[in-house]
Each structure stands twice: as structure tokens, then as C-alpha cells.
């Protein structure tokens, strides 16, 4: 059962109905190499899900994001069936 804080956060995210990249509240993830720099905004609920995944795999969340961002976001959304 979701906590009232999780439910409140999900409600806020849903009510704003913005795509992930335009979410008003979130974590900015920056990927940078010698030749490119990209950034994406992740919602708090996405980050919470990533933390759980990283803990399950025994690695740090930032390593998960750096290496597998697209795969993990797709996998996360599949898991939650959002």
C-alpha cells in the first residue's frame, strides 16, 4: 500500500499532466561526454523506483542511471504499468 506521501506525490504528478521532462518537481540527470551533453528531468516517483532497482541489484543509483537510463525508465514504467 502506498504511503500518503507517495500517494500525494503521484497525485501532484498526475494533476500537472506534464511529460517527465517538463515535471515541475524532479531530479535533473546530466549525462556528459567529450562530445555531447544531455539532461533529463526525472520525477520523484521515478527516482524512488530507480533507488529500489539499484538496491535490488546491489549497485549505486547513479551507476544505474549513467549506464542504463533508457532501459531502466522503460522497465520501470512497465513494472508499474503506468
Amino acid at each position, binding site marked *: 500500500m502506498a*504511503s*500518503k*506521501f*507517495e*500517494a*500525494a*506525490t*503521484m*497525485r*501532484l504528478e498526475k494533476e500537472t499532466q506534464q511529460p517527465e521532462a517538463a515535471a515541475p*518537481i524532479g*531530479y535533473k540527470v546530466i549525462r556528459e561526454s567529450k562530445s555531447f551533453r544531455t539532461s533529463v528531468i526525472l520525477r*520523484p*516517483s521515478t*527516482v*524512488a523506483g530507480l*533507488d*529500489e532497482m539499484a*538496491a535490488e541489484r546491489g549497485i549505486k*543509483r547513479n551507476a544505474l542511471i549513467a549506464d542504463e537510463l533508457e532501459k531502466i525508465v522503460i522497465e520501470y514504467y512497465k513494472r508499474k504499468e503506468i
Partner: protein
Amino acid sequence: MKEVITIISRKGGTAKTTTAQSIAAALIRSGYKSLLIDLDAQRNLTAATGAKFTGYNITHLLEQSIEAVEAIQNTRNGDIITASPFLAGADLAIKHDTELKQAIKPLLNLYDYIIIDTPPNYGKLTRNALTAATSVIITAQAATFSFQGLEEVKQIIEQMKVINPGLKLRGIVITNYAGRSNKVKQILDDIRTAAAEMGTEVIEPPIRATDKITESQAEKLNIIDYAPRSTAARGYMELTQNIISWT
């Protein structure tokens, strides 16, 4: 319990988190038991202490779904109750200004000091932190736009004294202080004057800017333990001796 100290600022980037972590570390070095509470959904303090992002956190404590002690993580930087990304929904989830105060009651006889780090906005989390506190410290930089932020924070604190009459505004900590130019020195003097007019003071000394703080954050270690002889560490130790003299 000697003090519950809330660290606030109307602006981001004023080293609230570094100040909270450093004061807690300096208190431990001085022989006191201290507990950090991270109320910011960004979880900077949680990350800085090297605490785990999973497990029980402040949201579980506020919901009272666990015993208070279960929320505490022991780290090499001391004890902390971590934040959660779901604090983003706090303004919807929290109903009363007294929820944090009630939640931390069981912890008051376990620690000498509780230090609360707040988000840089005036929402229900900050209101709860000010209701639970015995003392509040404002962090600010010696910068032109700091004046507007200081007056706003002072007004917020005055409003909260209606709910928490015992709340004491202890002063302003100047952070990231470069102090090389006459202009910056003048701004610091102006802030001292403004603080006096507000009925408070700048808590001396200003904390000097140093690369050591950035280095310590990368190592997930507080500046007191990482570089005890740095100007910032010495500044925070002296600041903490001021805090200890309050009681």
C-alpha cells in the same frame, strides 16, 4: 535534549545542508549526541552523509507507521533520519504544523541536539520544522539579493512564534564568504546592520569559501572530519561553540 535547531533560508545555494551537517559533526566532536533530520526532497543531506536511499525515512516517521528509532540510520557522519523523494507531496500529505514535533518526541531524550535541514521554500515541511524547533538559524551569503530573503525569513519566523512561542531566532550564518573585495566586506557589514535592525545578529565568524567543502562532499564526509584545519572547518567549530553556549 538541549536544542532542536532548524536551519532555514529563503534561497537555495546558501549552504544550509553543509551547515547542518557541519554543526552536527562539530557537536559530536565536542562530545554531544546529535541527530540530523533531512526534510528536503532533493536529499542532499542524505547523500552527503552517505546514508542509504532505501529503507525507512522521515515520511515513515511522519506517518507514524514505525517506531521513531527505526527511522534512524547510523553513518560515519553520525545519525540521520533521511529524506524521501515523496516529500515532494508533503504539502498535500501533511495536515498540521505539529506533525513533526509529535513524531520526534520519542527521540528527544536520546540526543543532546537535533539539527533539521529544510527545503528552500516556505511550505508545510518548513512550518513543521519551525514548530518542532527550539532555535532557528538562517543561512545567507554576503550577496546583494540576500537582504530581500532575510526580511522574508524574519517575517516567516515571527508568524511561527504564534504557534511556537519558545522559538528563538539565534542569528544568521554567512556562508561561502570570500571576503577579498571591499564590496563583499561592505555587504557583510550591511547584513550585520540589517540583522541588528531585525533584532538578531550575524553569528560569527562567517564561513569562508573553500574547495575543501566540495572535496569533502565528493567523499561523503563532513568538512570537520575531512579537513579539520581548513578555514571552513575551524569556522564551523567556532560557530558550534557559540551554539553550545546557548544552554
